[in-house]
């Protein structure tokens, strides 16, 4: 186990470095931060001075070497937009994003298990059909649109929830719900189909013939067997939300998280902040993957980690 963790950490480190290098090269090849950061009326002298100040007058390989050196101390330089250390901005906004993802995915996971199980009890029944139809509907609606629709219904028409921003517990409900909808649908479908498979297994029939209660079979034995695939998909949902979906939701709801900050950093050509954000998200994803592997091993020791 120890050797496995070390190897995965090494692989993870390579992934993070690779992602960082890609962002580093792309931002320098395809954007001109000097043109983006200075006003239209800035003189050539001001442009040159600014380029020298942020080190853009040096050869790109040299810039990357310096960057790697700074990385060890999490020094991504000053955010051009916020004029304070880029990592400080990340540390400030990351908790908001994690809170939103936690609320959204938590809600999806908690609701998906009972929904999927109930639907699986009578495949083709009315409950099952309604669940599957709603799930398909949720999956086919873009998040951006769902968010605006929820705002229109609950904030503009009913006036029961705030439209945007962060401040009270009520503020998290609509963005979390928007974020939860697709994962909820996918997880419910997974629980439903896995549960239908499980209930047709021989061991269920044997257990029932021995007089074991159906609830116990369903809630303990079958549930444990579908747990790995449930957690795998949840982990995947967590990673894909972190890597992108949260950007849309945070923008629609003006939620001050890392996703919204990433969009603003891109719009303002703030390459130092972009590097810090991409690095942090890549690192988080690697850590989540590693954690999931370890959790799976703990749940089911039969899993071979290599």
């Amino acid at each position, binding site marked *: 186990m120890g050797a496995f963790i070390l190897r995965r950490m090494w692989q993870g480190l390579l992934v993070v470095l690779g992602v960082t290098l890609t962002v580093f090269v792309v931002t320098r090849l395809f*954007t*001109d931060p000097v043109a983006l950061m200075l006003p239209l009326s800035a003189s050539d002298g001001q442009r040159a001075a600014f380029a020298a100040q942020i080190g853009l007058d040096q050869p790109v390989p040299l810039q990357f070497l310096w960057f790697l050196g700074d990385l060890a101390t999490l020094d991504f330089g000053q955010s051009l937009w916020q004029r304070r250390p880029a990592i400080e901005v990340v540390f400030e906004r990351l908790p908001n994003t994690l809170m939103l993802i936690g609320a959204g995915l938590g809600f999806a996971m908690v609701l998906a298990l009972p929904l999927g199980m109930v639907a699986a009890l009578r495949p083709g029944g009315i409950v099952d059909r309604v669940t599957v139809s709603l799930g398909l509907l949720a999956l086919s609606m873009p998040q951006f649109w769902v968010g605006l629709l929820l705002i229109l219904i609950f904030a503009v028409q009913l006036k029961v929830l705030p439209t945007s*921003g962060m401040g009270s517990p009520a503020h998290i409900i609509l963005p979390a719900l928007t974020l939860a909808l697709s994962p909820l649908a996918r997880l419910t479908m997974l629980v439903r189909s896995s549960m239908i498979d499980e209930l047709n297994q021989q061991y269920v029939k044997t257990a029932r013939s021995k007089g074991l209660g159906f609830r116990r079979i369903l809630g303990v034995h079958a549930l444990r067997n579908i747990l790995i695939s449930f957690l795998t998909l949840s982990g995947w949902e967590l990673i894909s939300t972190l890597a992108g979906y949260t950007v849309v939701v945070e923008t629609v709801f003006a939620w001050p998280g890392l996703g919204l900050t990433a969009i603003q950093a891109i719009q303002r050509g703030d390459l130092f902040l972009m590097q810090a954000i991409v690095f942090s998200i890549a690192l988080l994803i690697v850590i989540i993957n590693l954690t999931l592997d370890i959790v799976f091993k703990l749940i089911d020791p039969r899993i071979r980690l290599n």
Partner: protein
Amino acid sequence: MNFMLRGLLATSAIAVLTAAAGPAALAQSVTVAIGSEPSTLDPQLRDDGGERQVNDNIYETLMARTATGELVSGLAAEAPTQVDELTWEFKLRQGVTFHNGEPFNADAVVTSVTRVLDPANNSEQLGYFGTIASAEKIDDTTVRIITTGPDPILPSRMYWMKMIAPGYAANGDLAAAPVGTGPYKFVSWNRGTDIVLEANAEYWDGEPAIDSVTYRFIGEPGTRLSGLMAGELDIITNLLPEFTTSVPKFAAVPGLETSVFVLGTDNPIIAIPEVRKALNLAIDRQAMADSLFLGFATVAKGHHVNPAAFGFNDALESYAYDPDAARALIEAAGVAGETIHVYGESGRWLKDREQIEAVAAYWGEIGLVPEVHIEEFSQYLDTLMGDGPRPDSIFIANSNELLDADREASFIYHMDGAAASNSDAEMAAMIDEARITTDVAAREALYAEVFQKAHDLNYTVPLFNLQDIYGMSERMEWTPRPDAKLMIKEMSVTE
């Protein structure tokens, strides 16, 4: 019993009155949505919309503008006088203090000027203050600004430079907790969410009507609109013309921007004066103003100078719409079927892509073959201002914060201007002269001549003076300003 009843009635009356007074007091606070969070609240570093919208209410400048755009004295007691060609003298208003109690005096002006010019601070506002050399204290209430050359628009420049407190600038945190002399005091900045200001009870021009203002950062236009409809916001900026009918209230005012195509007059086809004339005659500007902007834009009068700016030539006529004449000109020049390149960007200015595509279509109708290039913004800036070959035509929504024609003249019409595409040395000389002429009437006459010439030679294709449209809650009472500043002291709420 009677006594008890009276007591009960009196208590109820007090309760009712208190309840009535409560919401009335609360109603004096407003919430304004701004598109982006300020990067810093230091008033001398950035040239950034979010920062300006907040700091315009905290800080003041020596010169100010009325709600209609007229330049008046602000922290200066009166209009400045010119001591010699390079020296302007300002008398300062007395008895003004900063929010932290520091007095506003000549030292504050000297500190403000010195700090913004200091290259170490790398201020983005240097473009506004390029001609200023230094500031000199004469006595506590008199200060002189020295320029590097004759600068007739120095008073307008001082409408842009915010005055900071010397003591606080040295020891305080201007970037996170600003301290000015203005009608509103900084209260809090909840990063990512909002900034709150409260009325300055000691403001020299009287306490403003609105007690407190909250700025919320909402980048997504749809969310801003929903916030207004839900009653959470009182003012939103950049309302699309299409939504003016769905918001509780709106207000529109001619803004700072004029959309225009700059023509590359040295390029083979565009070098022919008749072709340039045809490009102007080909466009039905009124139809575009009506369909794209629903009337919230006016057809530019023959040049791209802001009508509120000094030097605007009121005598010029808008270019006529005459496609037949345009087609004839193109035929006569022998360039029918030739390709012309149309450059622009998308998303930076209101309906930019729509304007570019519509104009290209009009040019297509008179026999040319327009090829539209929509570029990424920094790439576009390179095309607009870089050292490469000049494009046949490039779109820009030109802004003029100083409200002086020097901006348009030197930026686009002067052959050495950053976005200019002509090589007319004679016109450049006229612009240079206007820039250093301090006699107001002579200067106005020079600009009239410059813009008449540019108009006759069709150096640009001016389109529209764009309006700024604001969505407002039912209770807001406010008339927007031509300089796009959101001055809370000019607002009030009913209720």
